[in-house]
């Protein structure tokens, strides 16, 4: 099939996307529930006690996936916002809107769980370290995006204004990601990377990946249900 044969803009119409979103959401929600249970089982029962951190390290099984999601959702949100700005497709702005609350939620969860991990491990709930501060800024970016969208009545104008904010805010993502390398942070460097083997026990790594997959599928399901609400509300 030639590239022109694929109707790229077919699903850009809210009406054609609506039933597809419903079916996808149901599938993702089911898979997310199963993977969450599996991830909890590995994280709380199977994974061994950490030699230095004791049981407190089990927080990592939700902290790291939540932190990944907080950044990933922002990038996807900014991507849809940019597509909406470039092609003036209505669904793109709706997708960005639908992702923001879930992204903000995962950012808060990352901060909250990190704080509860930091107290027993570092001796403090909070420190103005580059990683923690940039993650807090991410939370404010989500809040700013949602507040801006809520403040402008005309959805198309709101989408354009929100898109600008989302795109400018993307600058913060590499700052969060590389903060542990660029600055001398209290927050540790990453134990998982695409280039080398993870520097942690295999079961711990598995638990984290399963939980990350669960959070991915959860986010997709929730965003799709929310986009369906937005399509209905804007009719």
């Amino acid at each position: 099939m030639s590239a022109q044969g694929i109707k790229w803009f077919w699903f850009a119409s809210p009406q054609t996307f609506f039933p597809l979103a419903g079916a996808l959401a149901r599938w993702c929600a089911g898979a997310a529930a199963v993977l969450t249970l599996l991830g909890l089982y590995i994280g709380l029962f199977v994974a061994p006690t950490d030699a230095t951190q004791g049981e407190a390290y089990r927080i990592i099984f939700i902290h790291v996936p939540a932190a990944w999601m907080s950044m990933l959702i922002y990038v996807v949100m900014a991507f849809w916002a940019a597509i909406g700005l470039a092609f003036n497709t209505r669904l793109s702005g709706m997708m960005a809107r639908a992702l923001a609350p879930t992204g903000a939620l995962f950012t808060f969860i990352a901060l909250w769980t990190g704080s509860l991990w930091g107290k027993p491990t570092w001796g403090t709930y909070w420190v103005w370290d580059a990683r923690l501060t940039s993650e807090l800024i991410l939370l404010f970016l989500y809040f700013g995006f949602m507040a801006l969208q809520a403040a402008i009545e005309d959805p198309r104008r709101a989408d354009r204004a929100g898109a600008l904010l989302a795109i400018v805010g993307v600058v913060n993502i590499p700052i969060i990601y590389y903060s542990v390398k660029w600055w001398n942070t209290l927050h540790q460097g990453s134990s998982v990377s695409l280039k080398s083997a993870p520097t942690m026990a295999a079961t711990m790594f598995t638990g984290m990946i399963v939980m990350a997959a669960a959070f991915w599928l959860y986010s997709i399901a929730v965003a799709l249900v929310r986009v369906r609400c937005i399509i209905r509300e804007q009719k």
Partner: protein
Amino acid sequence: MSEFLAMGGYAWYVWGAYGVCFSLLGLEIFFLMKRSGKAKASETQA
């Protein structure tokens, strides 16, 4: 069981993290279902 719940003395931290995380995800689902129901109802009325 009580040993499991005690989490080696880190119960507040571990359960505080897991509890808040899954309560918030549950709340998001709850409010989204409510919104979804409302959006559906207003559509069928119109």
